[in-house]
């Protein structure tokens, strides 16, 4: 079972991953490292395809965040203002009711306990939340009381709310427990007695009603609405800060009527808070309305959407990367196959070009052999004639002379066939020690007659002390044949071909094949080593000669360069190592 994984990997492993470097035909590959090409392809495609996606996502997130933020602020402010109006209205309503009661009834009726109880009942019916009513004289003595607590006769002179009440026309207290042990708010209204002094009608409001009003504005689980006093002490319970009378750090210095929204951090949570002083010209309260909204909670919808979006983006990225990988693999594989086919074709071409160069030589060789054969033919024919035509004298010396000339001609044929054999034998031999001068003269021997006929001056300059080369002789020979053939094609009558070899240092030598022929136009110079580039398309050229020569030179670890001036001549320079590196055997 475990074998399945490597088998699968092997099956999907692209062909080029198995490409092994091979000196034999590497020279004919356009690209050498297909894995690099593959990685590069994937990288470039991925960057191109994914960066817009990343940019868009980032921009999208930023936009959402900004708009959600401003939306949240706006909503918090609205809620704060609405709740503020409600609380203000709540207070004003009760204060007005008391004012109305005081003005309507006067001191005498109000100090009548039965009448006061009646009024309390009506207030409870009309507004609710009123626990008790009491009337205090200017000294703080409770002169009348209606309600559940029996507080008659108490003196409130030293209570802070009493001190403040007598200073103003009306008064709303903070939430406090007072004598009763129940949180309540005091609302007091001052009024004048007929004798010129004043009295105070005081009502106690339970905070229940106020809290209900507040909590009716709570929307969702993440909003918190409560009141604090100017010292930051909770006046109603808060979801975040706890029970009533808990001190908080929510202290705001300015007494502004404006609703303000800010962001604060509470126990590591990011919270949007809105606050507003509940305070008007007519009614002054010690309350500050607070609205807190947990950002994270409010953002939940957006967060959910964002995470969905992120999932989609993530999935897209994975799909894109997979597609890119497949595409890159496919393309590189195609490229590899095409390149491989090209390299293989070039290898075959190299061999057939080798045969072609032999063919080219064969024509020259045939001519070289045909000439002595013609001599043999005519001499032998003449000797036969001497016997056939009866009247001819048969002079022994003359006959011997003819036989010698036949033998001479046979020798000439022998030399040529030996040269040819020696040349052909090189094709089989791999790396061996060779004498460059001998190799050059061997190659030139096939062009000897041609040079004579066309009056081409061929010179070979090799210093006396010259290292013995150790290289692949068949390849070097093919290189020489190709370059010499080229030179012979380029030159015209009277031109010259010079082959110069010299050692550059102990390890390398330089071989220059120079001709004073037609030269190569500059625009063609860069193309001459490309396969199938030929300026003799209409004639015999296959366009492979030089490309194969370049391939062979590369294979042997040689370097080749060409300099040419049109109409002046061409020089091919090969730098070759004295000893071929191991592993370059092909």
């Amino acid at each position, binding site marked *: 079972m475990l074998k399945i994984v490597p088998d699968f990997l092997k099956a999907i492993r692209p062909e080029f991953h198995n490409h092994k470097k091979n000196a034999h035909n590497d020279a004919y590959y356009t690209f050498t490292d297909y894995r690099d090409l593959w990685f590069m392809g994937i990288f470039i495609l991925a960057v191109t395809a994914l960066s817009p996606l990343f940019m868009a996502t980032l921009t999208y997130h930023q936009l959402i965040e900004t708009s959600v933020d401003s939306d949240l602020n706006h909503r918090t402010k609205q809620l704060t203002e609405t709740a503020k109006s409600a609380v203000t209205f709540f207070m004003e309503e009760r204060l007005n009711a008391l004012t109305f009661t005081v003005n309507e009834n006067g001191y005498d009726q109000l100090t009548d306990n039965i009448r006061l109880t009646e009024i309390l009942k009506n207030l409870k019916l009309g507004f609710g939340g009123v626990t008790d009513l009491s009337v205090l004289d200017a000294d703080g003595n409770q002169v009348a009381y209606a309600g559940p607590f029996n507080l008659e006769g108490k003196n409130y002179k030293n209570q802070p709310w009493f001190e403040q009440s007598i200073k103003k026309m009306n008064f709303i207290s903070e939430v406090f427990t007072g004598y009763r042990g129940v949180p309540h708010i005091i609302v007091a209204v001052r009024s004048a007695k007929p004798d010129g002094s004043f009295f105070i009608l005081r009502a106690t409001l339970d905070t229940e009603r106020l809290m209900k009003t507040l909590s009716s504005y709570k929307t969702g689980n993440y909003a918190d609405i409560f009141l604090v006093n100017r010292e930051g002490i909770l006046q109603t319970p808060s979801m975040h800060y706890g029970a009533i009378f808990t001190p908080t750090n929510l202290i705001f210095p300015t007494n502004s009527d404006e609703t303000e929204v800010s962001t604060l951090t509470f126990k590591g949570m990011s919270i949007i808070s809105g606050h507003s002083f509940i305070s008007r010209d007519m009614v002054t309260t010690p309350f500050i309305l607070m609205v807190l909204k947990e950002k994270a909670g409010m953002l939940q919808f957006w967060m959910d959407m964002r995470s969905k979006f992120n999932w989609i983006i993530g999935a897209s990225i994975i799909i894109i990367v997979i597609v890119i990988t497949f595409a890159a693999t496919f393309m590189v594989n195609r490229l590899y196959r095409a390149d491989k086919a090209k390299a293989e074709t070039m290898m075959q071409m190299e061999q057939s070009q080798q045969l072609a160069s032999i063919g080219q030589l064969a*024509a020259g060789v*045939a*001519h*070289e*052999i*045909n*000439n002595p*054969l*013609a*001599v*043999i*033919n*005519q*001499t032998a*024919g*003449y000797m036969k*004639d001497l016997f056939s*035509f009866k009247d*001819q004298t048969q002079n022994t010396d003359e006959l011997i002379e003819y036989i010698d*000339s036949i033998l001479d*001609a046979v020798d000439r044929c022998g030399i040529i066939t030996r040269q040819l054999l020696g040349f052909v034998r090189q094709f089989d031999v791999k790396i061996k020690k060779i004498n460059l001068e001998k190799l050059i003269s061997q190659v030139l021997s096939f062009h000897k*007659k041609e040079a*004579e*006929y066309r*009056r081409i001056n061929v010179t070979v300059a090799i210093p006396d002390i010259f290292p013995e080369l150790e290289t692949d002789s068949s390849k070097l020979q093919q290189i020489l044949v190709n370059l010499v053939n080229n030179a012979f094609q380029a030159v015209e009558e009277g031109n010259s071909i010079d082959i110069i070899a010299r050692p550059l240092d102990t390890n390398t030598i330089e071989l220059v094949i120079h001709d004073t022929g037609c030269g190569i136009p500059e625009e063609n110079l860069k193309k001459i080593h490309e396969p199938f580039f030929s300026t003799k398309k209409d004639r015999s050229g296959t366009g492979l000669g030089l490309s194969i020569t370049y391939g062979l030179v590369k294979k042997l670890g040689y370097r080749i360069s060409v300099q040419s001036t049109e109409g002046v001549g061409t020089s091919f320079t090969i730098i070759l190592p004295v000893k071929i590196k191991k592993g370059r055997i092909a």
Partner: protein
Amino acid sequence: MKILLVDDEEKFVNMLAKRMALRGIEADVAYTGEEAIKKSESTIYEVAVLDIKMPGISGLQLKKKLSPLHANLKFIFVTGHGAVEKSEDPGAEKDIYLSKPLDIEFLIETLEDLTQAG
């Protein structure tokens, strides 16, 4: 019939001339193009047998030089190459190409055909 044999292969051309003589054909010998032109100035030949590949003036070039001088001169080319790049001159198709090694009987037949036809 008087013919001119031109070939740089001296032994070949000498032997050929001797054998022609045995067969009643008078043949002069030239080893180079220059020599051939010189000989043609003093003697009138019916046919010139030219080797195509010669150092200096080639057979084809020699024909170009000889034909304006001798309007009636006919040409036979001889070559060691199997295939021959034919001259592109007008009238070149009338030229006859023979390959080496050369059969003398065939050469004589060709010569006779050529002279009788003309």
